[in-house]
C-alpha cells in the first residue's frame, strides 16, 4: 500500500496509485488537457511531476515500513527525457538506491505501453529530518 494520500497537485493532474510491485508503489497518470504540452504530447513538467510523486511515494512507503517518522525535503532532481510521451496512460515507479539517516537517493522510471522503453528517468535527492 502507498500508506498516505497523494497531495492536491498529484490529484489535480490525475495521478493515482496503479498497483504495488515488490512492495513499492507504481503510479499512473492519464493523458488529459491538464498534462498536455505540444499537441498530442505530454508536457515535460507534468511528466516530471509524475516522476517526483512516484519517487516520493516509494520513499514514504519504505520509511513507513521501517517505522520512521521523518520530514522529506527535496534537494534536487535531474530528469532525462528520452522519448516524447504520447496521448496515453503513463506509469512511473521509484527505486530507492540509498536511504540513510540524513539523505535518500531515488531513481524513478516513467513508461507508457512498453516498460522496456522508458520515456523518462529521474534521479532525486531528498533530505530526511526528524519530524516534530
Amino acid at each position: 500500500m502507498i500508506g498516505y494520500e497523494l497531495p492536491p497537485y498529484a490529484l489535480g493532474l490525475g495521478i493515482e496509485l496503479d498497483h504495488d510491485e515488490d512492495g513499492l508503489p507504481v503510479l499512473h497518470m492519464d493523458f488529459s488537457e491538464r498534462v498536455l504540452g505540444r499537441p498530442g504530447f505530454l508536457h515535460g513538467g507534468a511528466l516530471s511531476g509524475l516522476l517526483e510523486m512516484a519517487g516520493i511515494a516509494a520513499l514514504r512507503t519504505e520509511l513507513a515500513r521501517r517505522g520512521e517518522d521523518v520530514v522529506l525535503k527535496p534537494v534536487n532532481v535531474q530528469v532525462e527525457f528520452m522519448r516524447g510521451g504520447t496521448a496515453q496512460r503513463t506509469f512511473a515507479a521509484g527505486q530507492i538506491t540509498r536511504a540513510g539517516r540524513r539523505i535518500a537517493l531515488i531513481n524513478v522510471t516513467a513508461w507508457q505501453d512498453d516498460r522496456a522503453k522508458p520515456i523518462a528517468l529521474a534521479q532525486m535527492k531528498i533530505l530526511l529530518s526528524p519530524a516534530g
Partner: protein
Amino acid sequence: MSTGKEPPSIHDMEPGMDFDPAMAAKFMNKRGHGSYIGLRYHAHGSNWFELALPWRAELAGMADSGILASGPIISLMDNATSMAVWTLVGSFIPHATLDLRVDYMRAAVPGRTVIGHGECYKLTRTVAFVRGIAHDGDIDDPVAHVTGMFMATHGAYK
C-alpha cells in the same frame, strides 16, 4: 499588436516563423498544462524570459502546509527556459527538452507568486544550453536553480 492572425497556441506556429516574445506572451499558455497551472508572462530580454506562477492551493505538494509541489516549479522553468531559447533565436524552432536539473534552495512561501527566470546562455546548431532561477520576490534569495538543455527537432537553431 494583435494582427488577427495570431496562432491559438505557441505550437500552432510554423517552424521557422519569426518569434516575437511580446506577441507570444499574449497567446502562450492559453491551453494545456501551462494553462492548468496558471503560467503567465512576466518579462523578457534578449536571451531571457520570465514567467509567473501564481500560488494556488491545488498546486500544493502537501495539503496541510500549502507549500507548492516541485512539479509546478519544473514546469515553470521548462517553459521559461524554452521561451528564452526562441527569444534568443528570434524564430520558432520546434525543440524537445533533453534534460533538466533542478536544485531546490528552499520551499516557496505559500501564497506568493513564483517567478521563473529562464536564460539561454549558449546556442549551437542543434543544442540550446539553458539555466534559470525561480524566486518568490527576491532573486537573491532563490527558491531553485535550474540547468538544462534543449534539442532542435525540426531544423537548426542557427
